[in-house]
């Protein structure tokens, strides 16, 4: 029994490491921008993912995704999603078509009970535009430093793997954001906004939108730290129940 347990613990250790290696070593370096990223699984392995895609036209795709369910099954679908994104984005540059293609493949294997929510932001560094394709994922938070405003961006879009394609394609609308100097954009999973403290209170969108106001002028890494600290302070003695993923894009 003891030996069996030890073997399982060791195997989970391997799985955790393998999954960690699937995350990018470091965010891409883009002149005029900074990116920081973190993914902390709540269990040995998780269903969250972040990734960066270098598209054929040199634009950069920023991805955060969350597979429904938890543990090993979610981790396997997360691996599949990462592979599909990498493969599709080798030839495709249009965010709508990238997600439509990934959806088509996921639908075939997901058996409808598993689905993936995903946000894809395609950044054109030269024009400072960000095209957002939201597949059922949490809103993207956009901090406009100069205008002193914070918005939750939620363009229409279905989760991946739920529909064969027609409805998915029809529903998905790309939202375009014109970034300015000093702006910050937060891509994250619901592990942040649904983090629950001992009073069964959720961290929520509002807290996230408030805390990002206090990060103007900070680096992407500094912004990430401020936000994570705030989430963990809110949690207090409670452990996170879900994977926590956050990607911060900061315009210099």
């Amino acid at each position, binding site marked *: 029994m003891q030996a069996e347990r030890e073997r399982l613990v060791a195997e989970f250790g391997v799985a955790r490491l393998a999954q960690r290696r699937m995350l990018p070593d470091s965010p891409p370096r883009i002149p005029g921008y900074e990116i920081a990223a973190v993914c902390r699984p709540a269990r040995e392995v998780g269903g969250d993912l972040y990734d960066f895609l270098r598209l054929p036209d040199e634009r950069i795709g920023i991805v955060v995704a969350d597979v*429904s*369910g*938890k543990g090993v099954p979610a981790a396997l679908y997360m691996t599949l999603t990462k592979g599909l994104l990498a493969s599709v984005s080798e030839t495709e540059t249009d965010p709508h078509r990238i997600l439509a293609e990934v959806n088509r493949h996921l639908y075939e294997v997901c*058996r*409808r*009970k*598993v*689905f993936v*929510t995903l946000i894809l932001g395609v950044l054109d560094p030269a024009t400072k535009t960000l095209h957002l394709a939201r*597949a*059922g*994922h*949490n*809103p993207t938070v956009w901090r406009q430093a100069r205008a002193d405003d914070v918005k939750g961006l*939620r363009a*229409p*879009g*279905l*989760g991946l793997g*739920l*529909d064969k394609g027609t*409805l998915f394609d029809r*529903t998905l609308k790309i939202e375009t954001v014109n970034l300015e100097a000093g702006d910050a954009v937060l891509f994250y999973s619901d592990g942040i906004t649904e983090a629950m403290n001992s009073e069964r209170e959720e961290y929520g969108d509002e807290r996230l939108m408030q805390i990002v106001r206090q990060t103007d002028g900070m680096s992407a890494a500094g912004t990430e730290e401020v936000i994570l600290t705030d989430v963990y302070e809110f949690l207090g003695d409670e452990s996170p129940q879900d994977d926590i993923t956050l990607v911060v894009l900061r315009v210099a």
Partner: protein
Amino acid sequence: MPNPFAINTQTQDDITTIAIEGYLDAHTAPQFERAIEDEIGAGRLRIVVDCRSLTYISSAGLGVFMSFIEEVREQGGDIKVAALQPKVESVFEVLGFAEIFDISTDAGAAVARFGDAGTAQHGEN
């Protein structure tokens, strides 16, 4: 500690109302799944899910809704959703479920919408 969950199925004329209450998560989703399967198995394809007392839904719960909708619609029926609480409603909306499901403010309105569809066999006893 299991979260509270209850399910209550009632059929009137040819429309079945499945009322779910409490937490619909990975632990309770199989009960909900069985309740829908039973209806489909019995050929009752006009289903209203009354969510008035549903306080929480996880991805496993959402998966149950998705796993039957296509099959039921292909056979000429529908699964309509009624009376979502704000928290559950926002989960439905973020995921895009509002685009897929016919959602009404209460169960009565959802039942009435089966009539609106203008199907021939309108149940009149």
